[in-house]
């Protein structure tokens, strides 16, 4: 039934955004979700390309709240990526780049979901809290964090 409804619906363009390290590993654990979609990835590390070939991988500079100039560059790069891909849906497992992509994509009408890292066992990350202001859905991977912050819990990457 799922397959049937998919074949009748327009192809969904999905932009999946994650910084390097654990954020990218967590995104990779969501890959079954992207089957049947027109999937584009955005990340910070060119070696990610080999892992998801032949899917398109867009790169943006890695940044965090202590590197403001790089943050501006990341925002510009992600703006270009979002405008080029024109995703229907943006999914991010963090961190700052995911929040930025969601914020930009919302301006263009995409639906967006931010999945806070499983590393955040006691509170949402800064990116997750910022994403709560703009994303359609923010998920925590810990029920206690979800209950305390207004995020939703739908399971975890483990």
């Amino acid at each position: 039934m799922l397959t049937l409804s998919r074949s009748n619906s327009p192809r969904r363009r999905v932009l999946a955004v994650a910084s390097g390290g654990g954020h990218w590993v967590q995104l990779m654990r969501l890959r079954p979700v992207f089957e049947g979609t027109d999937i584009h990835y955005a990340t910070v590390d060119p070696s990610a390309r080999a892992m998801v070939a032949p899917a398109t991988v867009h790169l943006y500079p890695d940044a965090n709240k202590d590197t403001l100039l790089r943050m501006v560059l990341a925002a510009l790069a992600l703006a270009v990526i979002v405008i080029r891909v024109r995703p229907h849906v943006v999914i991010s497992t963090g961190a700052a780049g995911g929040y930025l992509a969601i914020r930009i994509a919302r301006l263009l009408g995409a639906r967006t979901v931010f999945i806070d890292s499983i590393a955040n066992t006691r509170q949402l990350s800064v990116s997750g809290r910022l994403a709560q202001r703009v994303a359609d859905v923010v998920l925590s991977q810990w029920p206690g964090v979800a209950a305390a912050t207004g995020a939703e819990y739908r399971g975890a990457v483990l």
Partner: protein
Amino acid sequence: MIFATVGTQLPFDRLLLALDTWAGLHPKVPVVAQTGQTSARYSHLTAIPQMDQDRFADHVSKARVIVAHAGMGTILTALELGKPLILMPRRADFSEHRNDHQRDTAAEMARLSTVTVVEDSASLCSALMLALDQASAPTLKGDGGVASASLLDALRGFIWSGERGRA
């Protein structure tokens, strides 16, 4: 081979120096470490400042035991491959990180059967001996590398639904 990683951002010399000492006492066991930024010199382990993802995954897959800071990338990669994992969380009071979230992460991960959490070099050494013993009986299996079915279903629903604000 024992593979150690402390990420590529902040230094974590407390773990690496303890491991270097252990490696000096156990010259038959090769130890390779992704050290990130470090000002220390290591005599007994092979120090590699930074690896790309392919090389990193290759080292994880070849290792008998993984020793690491409590960073999620390492934890998830080791779990996928079913590798015994010894975690030493970074501590903010030693300026090893901006906050103590690695200690929270480690406490949660300690529930998993393949994970041992250590706080100091003495417990690291005893955990290493125990893990090497257990690793010679290869009964561990990787967990398949995908998220929980409920999370995958929720995200599929989100992608294929037309409405806003529902997962």
